[in-house]
C-alpha cells in the first residue's frame, strides 16, 4: 500500500488496536492531525496542555495494562510533554509518544519551534527514534509499541519531521518485530529458583516485599495464591498497592514514609542487614542496585512465580512460620497506622478512609504528590491491582488529574477519583475543560491544608519551622473555578458535608471538585528521616 507518512501513523495505530489518543496539535504535526480528522477508528482527546496528554495516556495505560498513546507537536509542544515521558520512564509505564518535528531540511538550523527532541528524550525514555524516511515508519512504529510493552515496560518516543509525514512510501505492517539486540529475559533461571525456594523453606522469618512489577506483569493473582499457600506475610511498596487485598491478614501495613526504594531502605548499610535477599526483577540493572541480593533472579515475575509454585508446594511448610506471623500480628497491634481526631477540623486521613468506606472497590484512585498521596497509599482500602495510579518515581505534582481522566476513559464504569492537594491541583487545573468536553466526570478531592504540605512537614521537622514559600493561604475559590469550566464544586468543612458532596458528585455526570478544608498541620507518619535507618523510624510526632 502506497500512502503518506501521516496515513501510516493512522494505519499503525489502527493495527495496534489503539482506541484513544491523547494529544494537542501544532504546525509540525498537522499532516497527522489532518488524517486524524478523516478517520473514525479511534478517539482523539484534546487535553489542554501537552503534559496532561502524556499523563492521561499514562493513566490509561496503568488502568488497562495496554500501551498509552500521546501525540504532540515540535518545540514547546514536545518540551511540555517531557515531564510525562520522564514520569512514565521512572514508573515503567508503556507509552508511545509521537511528536512532530520541523522538516528535515530545517533540522539543525534553529528553525521556528525546532528543538533536538530525541536529544532531550534520550535519558528519559526506554527508547526513541527520529524518523528520517517514511519507508522506515511502519518498522519504527511497530518496534515502538513492541519495545514499550515488553520486558521492563516504558515510554518510547517517535519524532517525525513534517516532510516525512507528507512523503509517500510503502506501508507494510505485517512483518514480525525482530530485534537482534533486544531480547528481554522473561523466564527465571531454574537453578537459581530452586535455590531460592530452598532458602525460603529453611528460613524462620520470610517476608514478601512486593513491588510495582507485579502489577505491570499481571502477576497479582499468582502472588495472592503464593502467599496464601505459603502463609508468608507481605509488605507492598508504594507502587504495588492493591496486590493483596487491604484486609488480607498477611499484609503488613505500609513501610516507611515513602514506601519505595532508596527512601524505604533509608541508610543502606542498616537495611535488613541480617536478611538473605531473593530479588526477582525483569530488569537486570535493578537487581542489587541498592541492596545486595543473595539470590538474584532475572525474569518476568509472573513466569518466575509460575516456576516457583510447584517447588513451593512441595518444600515450603506454612506451619513453620506461625511464630513469625504472631510477632507480626503483635507489631501491627503495637504500631497500627492511625491518626487522632481532634477539634472540629476534618482530618485528611479520615477523608480518605471515608472515600474507601463509601466507594471501596467501586473507585479507581489517582493522586497528585505530597502528603495527600502518602495518606492515600496508607489509608485507602485497595482491593485490586490497577486500582491505584500515582506518580511514584518522579513524584510529579500535576499528574493526578490528567491521569484520572485517562483512568476514567479506560474504565468508565467505575468512579475515577483524584485525591489531590491545594498545591498540586493548580498544576493541571486546565484539564477541567477536557473533562467537561469529553464527559469524563473525574472527582477531584482536594485535601486543602493551605500549604505545600509535604514540604511544610519537612520544614517543621528539619528546618526549625521556617516555612519558606510553602504557605498557600492565598487561594482561588475552587467551587467557582469548577463552575467556570462547566463542572460542579463543593466546599466542605464537616463530615456530613463531605458525605453529601461525595454522594452528589458520584451521581453527577460531570467533573467535580470537592474542596475539603482539613487540619493544616497534620504530618505523615511513620517517616524515615533522609539517610536515617528504619531502626530509627519516627512513628509519632508531637507538636511541642
Amino acid at each position: 500500500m502506497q500512502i503518506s507518512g501521516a496515513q501510516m501513523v493512522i494505519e499503525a495505530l489502527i493495527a495496534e488496536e489503539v482506541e484513544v489518543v491523547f494529544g494537542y496539535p501544532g504546525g509540525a504535526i498537522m499532516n497527522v492531525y489532518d488524517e486524524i480528522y478523516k478517520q473514525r477508528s479511534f478517539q482523539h482527546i484534546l487535553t489542554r496542555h501537552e503534559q496532561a496528554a502524556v499523563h492521561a495516556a499514562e493513566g490509561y495505560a496503568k488502568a488497562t495494562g495496554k500501551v498509552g498513546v500521546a501525540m504532540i507537536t515540535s518545540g514547546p509542544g514536545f518540551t511540555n510533554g517531557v515531564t510525562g515521558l520522564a514520569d512514565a520512564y521512572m514508573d515503567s509505564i508503556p507509552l508511545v509518544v509521537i511528536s512532530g518535528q520541523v522538516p528535515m531540511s530545517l533540522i539543525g538550523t534553529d528553525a521556528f519551534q525546532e528543538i533536538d527532541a530525541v536529544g532531550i528524550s534520550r535519558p528519559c525514555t526506554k527508547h526513541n527514534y527520529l524518523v528520517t524516511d517514511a519507508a522506515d515508519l511502519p518498522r519504527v512504529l511497530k518496534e515502538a509499541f513492541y519495545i514499550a510493552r515488553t520486558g521492563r515496560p516504558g515510554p518510547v518516543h517517535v519524532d517525525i519531521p513534517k516532510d516525512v509525514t507528507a512523503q509517500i512510501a510503502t506501508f507494510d505492517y505485517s512483518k514480525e518485530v525482530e530485534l537482534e539486540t533486544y531480547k528481554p529475559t522473561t523466564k527465571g533461571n531454574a537453578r537459581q529458583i530452586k535455590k531460592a525456594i530452598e532458602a525460603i523453606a529453611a528460613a524462620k522469618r520470610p517476608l514478601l516485599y512486593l513491588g510495582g512489577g507485579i502489577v505491570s506483569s499481571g502477576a497479582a493473582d499468582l502472588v495472592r495464591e503464593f502467599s496464601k499457600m505459603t502463609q508468608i506475610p507481605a509488605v507492598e511498596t508504594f507502587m504495588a498497592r492493591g496486590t493483596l487485598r487491604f484486609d488480607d491478614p498477611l499484609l503488613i501495613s505500609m513501610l516507611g514514609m515513602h514506601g519505595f526504594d532508596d527512601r524505604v531502605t533509608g541508610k543502606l548499610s542498616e537495611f535488613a542487614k541480617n536478611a538473605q535477599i531473593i530479588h526477582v526483577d525483569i530488569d537486570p540493572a535493578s537487581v542489587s542496585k541498592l541492596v545486595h541480593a543473595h539470590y538474584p533472579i532475572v525474569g518476568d515475575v509472573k513466569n518466575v512465580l509460575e516456576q516457583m509454585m510447584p517447588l513451593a508446594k512441595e518444600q515450603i511448610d506454612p506451619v513453620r512460620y506461625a511464630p513469625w506471623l504472631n510477632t507480626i500480628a503483635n507489631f501491627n497491634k503495637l504500631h497500627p497506622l492511625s491518626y487522632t481526631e481532634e477539634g472540629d477540623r476534618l482530618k485528611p486521613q479520615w477523608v480518605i478512609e471515608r472515600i474507601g468506606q463509601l466507594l471501596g472497590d467501586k473507585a479507581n484512585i489517582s493522586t497528585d504528590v505530597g502528603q495527600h498521596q502518602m495518606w492515600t497509599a496508607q489509608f485507602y482500602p485497595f482491593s485490586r491491582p490497577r486500582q491505584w495510579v500515582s506518580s511514584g518515581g518522579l513524584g510529579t505534582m500535576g499528574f493526578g488529574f490528567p491521569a484520572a481522566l485517562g483512568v476514567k476513559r479506560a474504565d468508565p464504569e467505575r468512579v475515577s477519583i483524584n485525591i489531590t492537594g491545594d498545591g498540586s491541583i493548580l498544576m493541571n487545573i486546565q484539564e477541567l475543560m477536557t473533562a467537561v468536553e469529553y464527559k469524563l466526570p473525574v472527582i477531584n478531592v482536594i485535601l486543602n491544608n493551605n500549604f505545600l504540605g509535604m514540604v511544610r512537614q519537612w520544614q517543621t521537622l528539619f528546618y526549625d519551622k521556617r516555612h519558606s514559600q510553602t504557605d498557600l493561604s492565598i487561594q482561588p475559590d475552587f467551587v467557582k473555578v469548577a463552575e467556570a469550566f462547566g463542572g460542579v464544586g463543593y466546599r466542605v468543612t464537616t463530615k456530613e458535608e463531605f458525605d453529601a458532596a461525595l454522594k452528589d458528585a458520584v451521581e453527577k455526570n460531570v467533573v467535580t471538585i470537592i474542596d475539603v478544608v482539613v487540619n493544616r498541620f497534620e504530618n505523615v507518619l511513620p517517616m524515615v528521616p533522609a539517610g536515617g535507618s528504619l531502626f530509627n523510624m519516627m512513628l509519632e510526632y508531637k507538636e511541642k
Partner: protein
Amino acid sequence: MENARRVISVIVLNEASVLSRIVGLFSGRGYNIESLTVAPIPDSKYSRITIVTAGSLRVIEQITKQLHKLIPVLKVYEHADLVEKEMAMVKIPMNESLGDIEALAHAYNGRIVNVGSDTLIAMVADEPSRVGHFLEAIKRFHPKEIVRSGSVALER
C-alpha cells in the same frame, strides 16, 4: 579496588545516535570516560566501542547493566584478561635528530611515518602505559602536537 581503571567493549548496531546513547549513560551519572574508540566491525552491521573508564566494581557493574539495557546494544564485555593497545602520533620540529627519534619510536613499536619541510611525524603503537612512557621520553625533542588514539582491546 576503589576506582580502578576498567576497559569495557560494547558491540552496537551501526545506527544514528547510538554513540550519544552510550556516552549519555556515563555523563548522565557523572562518570568520566578516559578514552573512547569506535569503528565498524568488518562485514557486519555492528560497531565496536572500546571505553576506558575508572570506577569501583559496583559502579562498573551498574554501568555494564545499564549499557545492556540500551536497545541497540548487542553485547557488553568488561575485560579482565586482555590485550590492549593504543597508538599515538607526535609532530616534531625538523631541527631534532632524526636518528634519535627513529630509535626512540622503534623501542615502542613505531617509526617515523612522515617527513615534511618543517616537521616530521612519528607514530608508536603499544600498551597504553608504554605509550605514556614514550610521550614522556619524546618531550626532549620538543613535540609541537601529540595525538593519542585511545585504547582498543581484545580478550586473550
